[in-house]
């Protein structure tokens, strides 16, 4: 069963219905990320794909307000007409998750924290969502944050919505900051590297003032991406080549960064896919401890993509936690599908706090994506 909501009022009505009938609802946009969760209980779907469209876009303010069902691709096309773009470099996880390409919605991108290689420079989704409207588990429409770039009025609820997977309720409107599109970008590559050295080179460039917009390592090659005007780009590439002069540096391939963000560079086959957030210098130790079938480092090593054959999730997560990281299961193919929690479990005190925060928005547990 699906409830197709076209307006915020209809979302309110749907939640009030769910509340009255104590029914768990599955919040969905284009359903491209369904594979990140699982559902034993086939509850009704609250479909937000028609709650779509750009509400307000003032290019000179660099602020965009949209409804959650708007396709990310449509937003990008609209921004591009004004030489602007979303700052968090949203990738397309559709194909990795068995969904059609270019079909994901902005609501889904925010709820699942979908950000790409450029986030190393311009920040994650949390750094871009300025405000929102949503419906909570009481069936009340409310707003959080604001529509200006600098705001500390009240609690920063927008942060909480990013990566929440809809567990605080359906979002009905999103206000994002946008960025000027750089005139040009270019990348460099160093091939034939040992893991430790490749990861070190990412951190080396990350610690330089070049403002790289991509710092990734995959199968022996370190990739570096920069943007700017012709003159700026030339200076950045020259400086980077000088910093990397112990190695042979070749021209890179911008398309590589698209594949890295989309997760397809991992070449995971039918394996489980994980994403690890950890301090970048821990990456070599994590990779050697976990010995995954395949892995790719992004964000100078602060984000690791792993593909594993059936492996002991608890042991892997314990090893990652010892390095100060978290290991989240992004796509479960085998036994993990039913048996492994998608997000790295929090320690007991934090878990208790998280539960209380969830209850503050959704006391009846109406919005309970399974698998978390």
């Amino acid at each position, binding site marked *: 069963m699906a409830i197709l909501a076209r307006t915020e009022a209809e979302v309110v009505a749907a939640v009030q219905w769910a509340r009255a009938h104590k029914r768990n609802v599955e919040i969905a946009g284009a359903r491209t990320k369904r594979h990140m969760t699982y559902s034993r209980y086939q509850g009704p779907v609250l479909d937000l794909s028609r709650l779509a469209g750009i509400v307000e876009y*003032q*290019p*000179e*303010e*660099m*602020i965009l307000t949209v409804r959650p069902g708007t396709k990310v691709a449509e937003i990008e096309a609209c921004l591009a007409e004004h*030489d602007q773009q979303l700052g968090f470099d949203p990738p397309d996880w559709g194909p990795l998750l068995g969904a059609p390409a270019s079909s994901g919605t902005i609501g889904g991108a925010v709820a699942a*924290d979908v950000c790409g290689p450029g986030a190393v420079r311009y*920040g*994650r989704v949390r750094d871009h969502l300025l405000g929102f409207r949503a419906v*909570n588990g009481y069936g*009340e429409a*409310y*707003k*959080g944050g604001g*529509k*200006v*770039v*600098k*705001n*500390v*009025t*009240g*609690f*920063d*609820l*927008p*942060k*909480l919505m*990013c990566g*929440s997977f809809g567990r605080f309720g359906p979002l009905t409107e999103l206000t994002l900051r946008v960025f000027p*599109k750089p005139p040009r970008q270019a990348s460099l590559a160093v091939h034939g590297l040992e893991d430790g050295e490749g990861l070190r080179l990412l951190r080396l460039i*990350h*610690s330089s*003032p*070049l*403002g790289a917009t991509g710092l990734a390592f995959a199968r022996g090659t370190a990739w570096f991406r920069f943007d*700017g*005007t012709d*003159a*700026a780009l030339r*200076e950045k590439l020259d*400086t980077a080549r000088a910093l990397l002069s112990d190695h042979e540096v070749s021209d890179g391939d911008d398309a590589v960064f698209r594949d890295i963000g989309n997760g397809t560079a991992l070449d995971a086959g039918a394996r489980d896919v994980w*994403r690890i*957030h*950890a301090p970048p210098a821990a990456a070599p130790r994590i990779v050697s401890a976990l010995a995954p079938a395949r892995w790719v480092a992004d964000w100078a090593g602060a984000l690791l993509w792993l593909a594993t054959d059936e492996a002991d999730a608890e042991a892997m997560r314990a090893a990652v936690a010892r390095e100060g990281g*978290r290991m*989240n299961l992004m796509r479960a193919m085998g036994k993990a599908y039913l048996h492994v929690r998608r997000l*790295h479990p929090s320690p007991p*005190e*934090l878990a208790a*706090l*998280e539960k*209380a*925060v*969830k*209850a*503050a*928005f959704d*006391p009846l547990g109406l919005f309970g994506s399974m698998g978390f």
Partner: protein
Amino acid sequence: MLMPETDASIVARRDDIVARLKALVPDGVVSDRAGLKAFDGDALTAYRQSPLVCVLPRTKEEVAAVLKFASEEGVPIVPRGAGTSLSGGALPLADAILIGLSRMNRILDIDLENRAVTVEPGVTNLAITRAVEGKGFYYAPDPSSQIACTIGGNIAENSGGLHCLKYGLTTNNLLSATLVTITGETVRLDSGGGYDLLGVVAGSEGLLGVVVEAVVRILPLPPVTRTLMAAFSSVPDAGRCVAEVIAGGIVPAAMEFMDRRCIEAVEAYCAPGYPKGAEGVLIIDADGIKSEVDEAIARIATIARGCGAEVREAVDEAERARIWAGRKSAFPAMGRLAPDMLCMDGTIPRRMLPRVLARMAEMADEYGLGFCNVFHAGDGNLHPLIIFDVMKEGELERAEAFGADILRLCVEVGGVLTGEHGVGVEKRDLMPEMFSDADLAQQQRLKCAFDAAGLLNPGKVFPTLSACVEQGHMHVKGGRVPYPNLPRF
């Protein structure tokens, strides 16, 4: 000023509370009247209140013990960093323990490989940069009070600064924080997946817990910084220049505006050499690699001249420092013109600058009060400074009413009440201007999730008292109790 009604039963137990705190923090309890005088407020100077007692822990274990004690005994807690809040965030209460974090001032770890510095909450903002600049790094958020304000306070207020246009607020430069909850539990928060509690603790104004340790991100120092000063013969021209720079896709490191009155005050205060006779100046920094900075400066200068400005560039590092010292002195410089001052903090959409500036000038005439405009133009964050004399009959009330009208105007044009100073007590009663009952109720439910008994920093941020009900879920009680005698500001 009326804060929540003082609980006489807590005040009556004061001797016992002092004795119990001395057992928990043997060398860190201030309880004598003279000693407490030093802790009776923050930089919102119009309001003063001596705390019940002040405790100055040195370790996170001591913080946890104090909060656990307060929770068990039902005694409110007011956290304090350096006491530089401009919104009264650290204003004490007569029946609350003031917990000062200033003695927890050690830098615990400098991790250049991960571009991260681990600090205790009492470390000052500037101390982080001082500790890493020799290695080519710095901590980006730079509130004007950075020589004094602490990182714990910065996290509580989500502080910005002159350069947050390009580098973000505290929350965008925070990698993790260790929080002690009101029940004395210690939790480490990060944003590696799961709920982003780190994001919501930043800017929570001491209402959710006490940060006892933080890991902040440091950035490589930009190799080149150039500074332009553009002098305008009309304020709207300056506003137009700001809008054109932003719309042109240029992201300056900082873009600050000062009006004539402010320029004159600053010149009299520290003589930074600002252009004479201008109605307004913009101070603009571009930083980064050389070619990028050169291009940005050239484009900005062209735009500014197109808007009628006389443009001058700082010739050397000494002049740059002088120009910025002048900007950072705007607050004390204006403070010399009158005994009292209110510093407002609304943010507006940048295209609204000319309209809002014009309306504010009209309002100043209507209220018959002196004021000047100094603001972070790049992100539309206004800091009108209203000067007055609290000893003159009715001036405080007029100043507060003027300030409130400015903030209402900000909300009316699509902006917000506070861009970086926080709500505190100062803007508490204006919250309904921006948020509906449902909006505020949801924020208060979040507060209840962290602090069901409402012991952390009561009387701040929210205009109405509410009770958290425990029955399986929490909600804000219908029968709200407004503070009856509160001034509307």
